[in-house]
């Protein structure tokens, strides 16, 4: 799957465009950034409902290519600017966390860990 496929599956809207052809193998959904940082395993998409620049910084530290904001939330300009400077794609989707994760899982993405 590539970033473009995620946009299609989640009927998403691009807020900040990075590399849309970047290959995506695994994903992680959480509003707790500490948990995201704890259970990394080459996860390249972060789904979250959290809205602050630390979401982008967390993705940056984890080498994630794409952040999906669920529940139709729109990040503010400081978040967008940071993502742009880090070449990270931001997408928003109207789906809630559970549904968005389910759609991507059904589409072939895994969590990248055994449990």
């Amino acid at each position, binding site marked *: 799957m590539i970033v473009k496929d995620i946009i299609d599956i989640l009927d998403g809207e691009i807020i900040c465009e990075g590399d849309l052809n970047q290959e995506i193998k695994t994903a992680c959904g959480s509003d707790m950034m500490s948990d995201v*940082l704890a259970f990394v395993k080459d996860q390249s998409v972060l789904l979250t409902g959290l809205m602050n620049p630390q979401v982008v910084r967390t993705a*940056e530290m984890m080498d994630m290519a794409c952040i999906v904001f669920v529940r139709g939330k729109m990040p503010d300009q400081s978040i967008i600017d940071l993502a742009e400077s880090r070449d990270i794609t931001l997408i928003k989707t109207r789906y809630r966390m559970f549904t968005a994760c389910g759609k991507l899982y059904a589409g072939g993405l895994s969590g990248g860990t055994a449990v």
Partner: protein
Amino acid sequence: MSSIHLHYDVSGEDFTRAGEASGSVKKRLKALGYNTDAIRRVAIAMYEAEINMVIHADGGFVDVDVYPDHVDILLSDHGPGIPDVEKAMTEGFSTAPDNVRSLGFGAGMGLPNIKKYTDEMRIETKIGVGTDLYLTVRVNQ
């Protein structure tokens, strides 16, 4: 062994800027050609520590020494100190206030995460004086 020395001041006033130093180190290591795994471990450990520094200690400074086979990081603050280090190392234990939790941190994973991603970790802390956190990440070529 020759090393590259990097120094950063971490502001305790602006949570949104926490992580700037870690991002900068990450970029620098990448430019120097270190492997992805080592860079990520340095970045995550330092980022968690930087967040801790902003949440608990009103900022401080970070000294990073980059060697060919390892990276040494010292994070130093003049915060309140850690009363019970063993407890602070327990997954899920957190003293972070609710407003920090609403920002996505304070899950009690900071120090355990730092330990997980580093090869050596040492905490020197004194109540009312501050905390020095020494980290080493070895680089497997």
